[in-house]
């Protein structure tokens, strides 16, 4: 069973977002990690890079595929999860703790879904 915590928001492109004090933490949803299979590498942006809502900011590699990750918000990267560079498997193991980036100075957001609506999106995709 895939898991969609209710305290998070989601995008249709399978990222999750959590806002705390103006800092947006972004990661990949359970549906995304399951579909990707064993993740072998994550290309992350650099701190201070600008990200734009609806545009790609990272890609994740499995053995024979690469998938873009889209930013749910427009803003500035303030932190990246460097641990993932050495241990990309963390996304497969615990995708809601294995965040990718934290973004501040957010000026715009994509349409965000709550857990229930997102689960529906995932069901439709299957």
């Amino acid at each position, binding site marked *: 069973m895939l898991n969609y915590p209710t305290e998070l928001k989601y995008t249709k492109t399978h990222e999750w977002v959590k806002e705390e004090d103006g800092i947006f933490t972004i990661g990949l949803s359970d549906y995304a990690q399951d579909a990707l299979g*064993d993740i*072998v*590498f994550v290309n992350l942006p650099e701190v201070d890079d600008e990200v734009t809502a609806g545009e790609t900011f990272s890609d994740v*590699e499995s*053995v*024979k595929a690469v998938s873009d990750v889209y930013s749910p918000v427009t803003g500035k990267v303030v932190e990246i999860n460097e641990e993932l560079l050495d241990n*990309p498997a963390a996304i497969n193991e615990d995708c809601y703790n294995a965040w990718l980036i934290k973004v501040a100075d957010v000026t715009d957001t994509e349409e965000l879904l709550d857990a229930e609506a997102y689960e529906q999106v995932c069901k439709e995709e299957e």
Partner: protein
Amino acid sequence: MKLLFERSKTDRAMNLIPPCEVECVSFDDSLLRKEPLRLPEISETDLSRHYKELAKQTHGVNDGFYPLGSCTMKYNPKIDEEIASLSGFTGIHPLQPEESVQGALEVLYETKQLLDEITGMDDMTFQPAAGAHGEYTGLLLIRKYHQSRNDTERVNIIVPDSAHGTNPASAVMAGFKVINVPSNPQGGVDLDELRKAVGPDTAGLMLTNPNTLGLFDPNILEITKIIHEAGGLCYYDGANLNAIMGRVRPGDMGFDCVHLNLHKTFGTPHGGGGPGSGPVGCKAFLKDFLPSPIVMKKEDGTYFFKTPEKTMGQVRSFYGNFLVVVKALTYIKSLGREGIIEASSNAVLNANYLMNRLKEYYDLPYDEICMHEFVLSLEKLKHETGVSAMDIAKGSLDYGIHPPTMYFPLIVHEALMFEPTETESRETLDEAAEIFIKLRKMADEDPEYLHQAPHNCMIGRPDEVTAARKPVLRYSFENE
């Protein structure tokens, strides 16, 4: 099996070089290498046996059927190797004066003449060392052409969604943006979508025909016309030329430039991944942009090199993989006019024969006469039995068959792409068909066995996930 480094013993090296006859140079200490050089030290016996063992663990064309789609694994004639190892070819320096290498220039010139005729082009460079390198060179021709006309808005290269991965990658390298066009239900280019995609920003089209589904696009003349009318040029990816050589020419289909894979269509061996050779031919209006130098013939019958007037520069040093060109010329001379047509026709015949033997057992997403290759889809099989294209491919390894290309083209799910080539007999095709039919039955009866295949190879399925997550890319010495 041991690595070279694990066979190494101090001072066991071979004695091959005589001592220096002159005073030994002494470089300033600040220039000298201090790090130890840990190359293996190994006797000739052990070195020979080491590689003999590695050869046993390598499936070559003569180790069994090799229907690897899009790769044209035909038999590599022995005479081609013998000719390419003549000292008159191997022993000449690339910067020798032209008058001392007339035979080499003649090889390049004659090959150019023959391939121009086979492709319907007017001139050719042999500098590109591989197919992707040729694509890149051909796209630079297109780039230079538009630049020469100050037509700088043309930034888009149109690529069908069934294209080889090198096509979009080459286009970006050459400074273009890639516009993907979808295929129509028959597997060809969707003409309506193509018409929508072209415009004043169209630099050109990259197309392989027959396409990667193994189908000849019957709308080809319309396709190239749409591009030309929009002001773009048409690039032919020659990876699949083996289906049509002698039957129809890229130049007559409306293409302006083309690359060939001598290591596919013209019988030169693949060397475990290279060297190949990817000559690029073009119509007369593009020849001034070709890389330098181009071989020419004088009226007195001698040959010389010329720098094309508006040359793009050079894409490789010297004249490309010359010795591969020698092999290809030997091959073309052996086949000749009727042999070329015989080869392509039989490549197509063999593919259709095998396809017809298999289509009762596997899904054939495009049930038409194919060209030199065909694509099966195992999507339904996977859904019903859990057995994937990968499982069937790995299962075939246990029968001494090199598997077909897997998971390509991307527009067919669970794809297996077969290219038997013309140098296989009917018996080989029948045997292969029986094996793939047997594997199909096994998918119903014992899927687990196929999930675990291969069972009889040197190794089982390797752990590619760990290989990519924790890359080990070189041997570590014990004392490290």
